[in-house]
């Protein structure tokens, strides 16, 4: 059936993580690119990064629900480790994680895209 072939076409039906990766990098750069870690601005930065990423992703107009998470950590030598695990439809859903840093902070952003049935 013609409909079914389109459904299984990889590039249109599934999550494109390279595209999401570059969207996320641009959002991080535009919010904190030139800044040093600042305790009283960090709240604003994380909120701004997740909102921007979400807006850009929604503009792609795909039938997905999105979850965007962002962690910003000051560089003081502390160890930080993150992990995630997902229980979903592996053919349609996907995620991408971007690790970014500058001289004074680390920023880790993850995007999870879940297809709407």
């Amino acid at each position, binding site marked *: 059936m013609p409909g079914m072939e389109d459904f299984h076409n990889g590039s249109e039906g599934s999550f494109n993580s390279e595209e999401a990766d570059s969207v996320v990098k641009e959002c991080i750069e535009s919010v904190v690119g030139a800044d040093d*870690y600042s*305790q009283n601005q*960090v*709240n604003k*930065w*994380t*909120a701004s*990064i*997740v*909102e921007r990423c*979400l807006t850009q*992703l*929604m503009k792609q107009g795909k039938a997905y*629900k*999105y*979850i*965007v*998470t*962002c*962690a*910003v*950590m*000051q*560089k*003081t*030598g*502390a*160890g*930080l*480790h*993150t*992990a*995630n*695990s*997902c*229980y*979903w*439809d592996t053919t349609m*859903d996907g*995620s991408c994680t971007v690790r970014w840093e500058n001289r004074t902070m680390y920023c880790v952003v*993850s995007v*999870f895209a*879940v297809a709407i*049935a």
Partner: protein
Amino acid sequence: MDEGQTEEETAFVVEEVSKIIKESVESAIGGNAYQHSRVNQWTTSVVEQCLSHLSKLGKPFKYIVTCIIMQKNGAGLQTASTCFWDNSTDGSCAVRWENKSMYCIVSVFGLAI
């Protein structure tokens, strides 16, 4: 679609999920001090245990579980998340846990199928 299941059986119940997270964290790292060589194994263990308990609930949800473990040495850490989903059926729950040497932050997002 919902035949045979009450609303409670198909909704995202925050207290129930919060309890699952707390138990998973306690059992994976409770009583341990931060150790760089083991933290990889710990984060994996926390997310896998959470996910396994969540899927046993048998609810019609897709789940995403994230875990952050950070050593306590005075660094500032800020996390945020935003979601584009169905407000009436989807939900999330975050738990912050700590002991003398580390912080552990676990978030669970549940999306109705």
